[in-house]
Every structure is written in C-alpha cells, then in structure tokens.
C-alpha cells in the first residue's frame, strides 16, 4: 500500500470493530501510521467505548418480572392458580399443565427449579435439626431478640408465625447459610413432641413469584412453600400432607397477611 493511496473505508471500520483477521489488521495498522485515517479509527473506537459506558449498566440490572413471564396464557393461569390454590384447599396445589404446549413444559421447568431452591434445603435443614435433642435451636423463643436478629441477618422483616391454634409452640430458631445469602429456620413442637419447621431464605435467584405449592422429600418429609421475589418460605413436617396443609395455611396467612 503506497502512501498516497486511499485506504478502503470499510476496512477502517472493520479494524475499529476487531472484525479483521489478525494479519490483515496488522498490515492495515502499519499502513495507517500517521495518516489522517488513523484518527477515524480511533474515533470509531471511542464511539464504541462510549456506547458501552452509556448503556452497559442495563446488563447488570435485574430483569423486570414482566419480561420473565413467558407466554401470557401461561402467566394468567399461574396468577389464577396462586389465588385459587388456597381456596381449593390442597386440591389444586400442584400446577399441572392442562393447557399443554409451552405452559405445561414451562411450569414443569419452574417446578424443578423451585424444588431445588426450596424443597430440598428446607427438608435437609428440617431433618438435621429436628433430630437434635439438646440443641434443636440456636436461640430460644423466650429470647425476644430472636426475630429481630433473624430479620436483621436476612435483611427482611420476618415474623415467627403463631401456631398455638394448631397445637404447635415456637421453640426458637437459627440462622443457616443459603446458597448466596442467608436462611432462617423456626422450629415448633406440639405436646406429643412432634416438630415442624419453617424455612425462610432471601437468596432466590431471578425475580419470581409462585403459587402456594407442595413438594415431597425422602423419609415422608412434606413441604409447602411459596416464593415472593427473592424470598422463599417453606413449611416442613414429617406428617401427612392433609395434616400439614391447615398449618401451612396458618403460616401463609400470617406471613403474607
């Protein structure tokens, strides 16, 4: 390339955009030297960098929930399921696809994710700590800072539901590790020494919302749960589903009400 020969316009853009193969790019850089076109390439690069400076912040922002809804029909059904599930008293607790297509597949995927996010950790924490005879809880219920402490650690005002009407008394609670954040467990006991736990975590990934749902783990551990944004709530007990359901409703009403 001789000094006076104009340089191909498209090549200047391709050089600025990194769309030339390395040999061609090297050759062009050498040919540009101090020529005025070098200034164009630098300006194009500056424009690209400026675009990133202006707009990249969007990439790190949480995606608004409305963009994660998927097909509208599916979403409408889910909203309905959330409202209807409590009224249906356990009969409609599982969202099972009647509409077929995306709706069913999508809800199955979500349910698997929620099993992983809620049912498994709630059940494991339940199994580990209800078996404790001497140290079932970290802070006992008679210490009034219990709820304040857990609320502070979860960065969310939480409550310890009152389940006396179901025959269960609050024993206390403990702080647990979540996946990336924190989780809390409240433990309750009835006069027969049967225990149940409430598991609350603050690090659900993605912004989601679920209906009141049911899951099962090995050893007859039943879990009712729901997700509200980053927060997940689960009621876990080693008892029949129909016995756990009215207690789960009590918890739901007190925490959501």
């Amino acid at each position, binding site marked *: 390339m001789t000094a006076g020969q104009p340089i191909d316009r498209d090549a200047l853009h391709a050089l600025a955009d990194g*769309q030339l193969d390395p040999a061609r790019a090297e050759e062009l850089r050498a040919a540009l030297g101090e020529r005025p076109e070098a200034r164009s390439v630098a300006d*194009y690069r500056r*424009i690209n960098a400026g675009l990133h400076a202006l707009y990249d912040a969007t990439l790190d922002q949480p995606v608004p929930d409305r963009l994660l809804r998927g097909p509208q029909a599916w979403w409408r059904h889910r909203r309905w399921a959330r409202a209807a599930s409590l009224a249906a008293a356990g009969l409609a607790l599982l969202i099972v696809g009647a509409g077929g297509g995306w709706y069913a597949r999508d809800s199955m995927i979500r349910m698997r994710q929620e099993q992983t996010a809620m049912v498994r950790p709630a059940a494991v924490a339940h199994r580990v700590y209800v078996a404790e005879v001497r140290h079932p809880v970290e802070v006992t219920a008679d210490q009034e800072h219990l709820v304040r402490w857990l609320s502070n650690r979860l960065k969310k005002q939480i409550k310890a539901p009152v389940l006396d009407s179901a025959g269960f008394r609050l024993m206390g609670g403990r702080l647990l590790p979540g996946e990336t954040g924190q989780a809390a467990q409240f433990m309750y006991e009835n006069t027969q020494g049967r225990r149940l736990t409430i598991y609350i975590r603050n690090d659900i990934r993605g912004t989601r919302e679920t209906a009141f749902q049911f899951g099962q783990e090995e050893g007859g551990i039943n879990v009712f749960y729901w997700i509200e944004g980053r927060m997940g709530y689960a009621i876990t007990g080693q008892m029949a589903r129909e016995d756990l359901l009215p207690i789960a409703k009590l918890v739901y009403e007190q925490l959501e009400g």
Partner: protein
Amino acid sequence: MADDELRQLVIDQIPHLRRYAMALVGDRDRADDLVQDSLERAWSRLKLWRRDGNIRAWLFTIMHNLNANAVRQAKRRPRHDPIDEVSVLPATPPNQEQRLELSLLAQGIAALPAEQRAVVLLVGLEQMRYEEVAGILDLPIGTVMSRLHRGRERLRRALAGEAAPALRRIK
C-alpha cells in the same frame, strides 16, 4: 436440545435485548415494552425456530421487525426524547470531560436516522459481525457498511460539538 435449555438460551439474551432496546428507543419503559412484545412473539414462535440457528440473531430480528412496524404505523420518525442523564449515565461518575462526551454521544445517537442508529448500535454496542447485522436487518452487506459509515461520521461530528441544531437541550 431440551426445552428448558432452549428457554434458558432465550432468557440469557434478555439483558442484551434490553440494552439494545434502551439505546434504540431512549426510554426505559418504552424499551421494556418493546422487549416484552418481542419476547411474547418469540415464545409463541419458539417451535418454529431452527434449533441449529443463531438464537441471538433470531431474537434481534424479531425485535427489529416489531420496532420497524411500530415506526411505520406511527408514520413518522419515532419519538426519541433526549435521554435522561440520570438513567443512562454510569454509576461511577466519570470526570467532567467524559461526562460531556457521553452526553454529546447520547444526543448524537438520539438524533441519528433510525436506520443508521440500528446499525451503529448492533455493531458498536452488541458487537455483532457485519454479516449478522445484514441478516437481522435484511439488508445487503454494502448497505450495512454505508449506514455504519454515515452514522459514525455523524456521531464524530456530534462529539466534535457540531451537533445538529434541531436537537433539544438535555435537561
């Protein structure tokens, strides 16, 4: 490819669709409206998508077509308000000079003819190859290159302080 993998592929592109839409229409809410419309169309047509294809190009094509239709229906250039500095400028405040340059650039982008703006953004912001941009916009590559050139030269003039006089001032 399993359906949940396919679904995840789409979800992974949402932040990129939002960024492009934001730069394209200049307003967060209207940008997200465009993304939402695009996603709804994508979900409903996902079964039609060739599974060995480029899902990013496919999604951006849907978005481009929807936006182009909206612009056509409006029968005028899209309303493109001066960008609210607070909403687009980076969290760490750049120095005064960079601020001015970014502000001029944002104004320059807003003032570009829509067809040049799309090319400048797909190449410069989304870092797409020219062939991919040609596919998305359904244009010959020569047209892509000339729009890129004209768009960037306008922006250079805007950065040099020769902004088009019709521009409104940024608040």
